[in-house]
C-alpha cells in the first residue's frame, strides 16, 4: 500500500516535469521567433555585379594566316588568373562556332592559367610575367593537325593574352598539367614563347 506522503510526492514531481516541459517548449518557440525576426531585419549586401569590359581577342584566319582583332563585351572576375581563363575560354568558343575562320571542335579548351612573376632566377634577363596555359587534353586531341592551324592557335592565345595583360612577356603551354611535345603533331609545345613576338595584327 502506498502511503499518502509518497503519493503527494509523486504527483508533485509529475506536475513539475510537465510544467518544465511546457516552459522549455515555450522558450524554444520564443528563441526561434527571435532568430527569424533577427534574420528578416538583417541588412542584405547588394549583389556585386562584375563590370562588363570590352575585351580584345586576336582571331585567327586559316585562309590568309593572319590574326585580326575582334571585340567582345564580357563580365570578368576580379582575379587576374580567373579573368585570363574566362577570356581564353571565350576565344576558343568563338572558334567552335559555325562559319569560324579557324574551326576547332567545341570542348573545354583551357583547364587553368597561372601567372608567375619573373625573373625566377638571377640569371634571367626578361622581366614581366610568365603565363602558364594548361590546355585540356580533349581540346588538344580534337585540334586539327597541321603547321598552320596549330601555329595560329598558339599565336592567337599568346596575342590575346598579351593584348589584355601587357605585363605578360612569356607564355608556356601544358596539356592536362604535363609537358607535351606538340599541339597536334607539329607546333612545338616544349619551348617558351615570347609574348612580345605577337603584335596586334600579325601574319604568321
Amino acid at each position, binding site marked *: 500500500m502506498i502511503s499518502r506522503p509518497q503519493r503527494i510526492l509523486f504527483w508533485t514531481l509529475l506536475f513539475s516535469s510537465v510544467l518544465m516541459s511546457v516552459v522549455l517548449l515555450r522558450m524554444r518557440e520564443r528563441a526561434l521567433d527571435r532568430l527569424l525576426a533577427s534574420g528578416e531585419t538583417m541588412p542584405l549586401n547588394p549583389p556585386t555585379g562584375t563590370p562588363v569590359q570590352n575585351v580584345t581577342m586576336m582571331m585567327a584566319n586559316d*585562309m590568309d*594566316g593572319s590574326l585580326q582583332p575582334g571585340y567582345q563585351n564580357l563580365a570578368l572576375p576580379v582575379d587576374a588568373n580567373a579573368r585570363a581563363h574566362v577570356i581564353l575560354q571565350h576565344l576558343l568558343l568563338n572558334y567552335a562556332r559555325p562559319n569560324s575562320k579557324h574551326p576547332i571542335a567545341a570542348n573545354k579548351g583551357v583547364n587553368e592559367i597561372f601567372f608567375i612573376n619573373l625573373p625566377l632566377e638571377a640569371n634571367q634577363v626578361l622581366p614581366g610575367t610568365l603565363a602558364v596555359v594548361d590546355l585540356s587534353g580533349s581540346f588538344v586531341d580534337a585540334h*586539327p593537325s597541321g*603547321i598552320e*592551324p596549330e601555329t595560329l592557335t598558339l599565336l592567337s592565345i599568346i596575342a590575346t593574352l598579351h593584348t589584355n595583360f601587357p605585363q605578360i612577356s612569356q607564355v608556356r603551354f601544358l596539356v592536362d598539367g604535363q609537358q607535351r611535345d606538340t599541339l597536334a603533331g607539329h607546333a612545338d609545345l616544349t619551348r617558351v614563347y615570347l609574348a612580345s613576338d605577337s603584335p596586334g595584327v600579325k601574319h*604568321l
Partner: protein
Amino acid sequence: MLWIEERCRGLTLGLILAPLLAGAQSNTPPSTPGKVPSPPVPAEMTASPAATPPRAAARFVVVIDAAHGGADSGARLSNHLLEKDLALALSVRLRSVLGAHGIYVVTTRESDGAVPDLNRAQAANHAAAAACISLHATTSGSGVHLFTSSLTQIPMTRFLPWETAQGAYAEQSLRLSSEIDSAMRHAEIPVTLGRTALQPLDSFTCPAVVVELSPLNTAGKVTALSDPDYQDRIVATMAAAVEQWQRDWRQQP
C-alpha cells in the same frame, strides 16, 4: 647539350654521325641520258674552311624531308589519304624531277618508316645542303603555306647549339622561302608565309623551308590534295624554284 661543328661537316663529323644515319638515305636520282648527277663528294673535300672549293664548283645538294612516317601518320587529309603518305609521294616525285635536272638530292625518308627528328637533322646537316625542304600537308587554309623557323638570326660560329642551329641560317632561309613564294605566285598558287617553332627544322644547318600543302580554294572551287594535276603543279613549281635558287646560290660569295 649536343653540339655540332658547323664548318667541319666532313670526315670527323661523318665518322661520328655515320652510325646514327641509318634512318636516312641518300639517293642517286634516276639516270637520264646526258644528265647524270654527280656522285657524292668525299667528305675530306669539305673537311675544313681552307679546303672549301669556290662556291661555283661546289656541289649543290638539296635535302627533301618527307614529314612523319610509321606510326606518326600526321594529319588525316581524307578517308584514304594520310599526311605521311602524301609527303612521301611528293618527296619521291620532287626528287625525280630535281634528279632529272642534275641536282643531287638527299632524302630523309624513302619508305613508310618512322625516322626520329634527330636523324632527319643529322642527315640534312651531314649533307651540307644548299637547301632543305620539309614537306607537310594539312586540310586547313588554301594553297601552300611556307614556313621558316621563328628563330632570330644569330652569328655563324664554329659551334652551334643543336636545338637552335637554324638561327645561323635564318636570313638565308627567308631568301629561299621568298624564292619559292615567287615561283608559287607565278604559278597562281596562293601562298601564306609564316614562321613557326618546329622540329627538326630548328636543328637544320642549311637554308630550310617547310612547305605545307593544303587544298586549293579559288573562287569557290576546291581542288583536293589528292588531285594528281594539283600535285604535279606543286612539284613542278618547287623544282623551278630550286633551280632558280641554285643559280642564285652559285652567284653568292
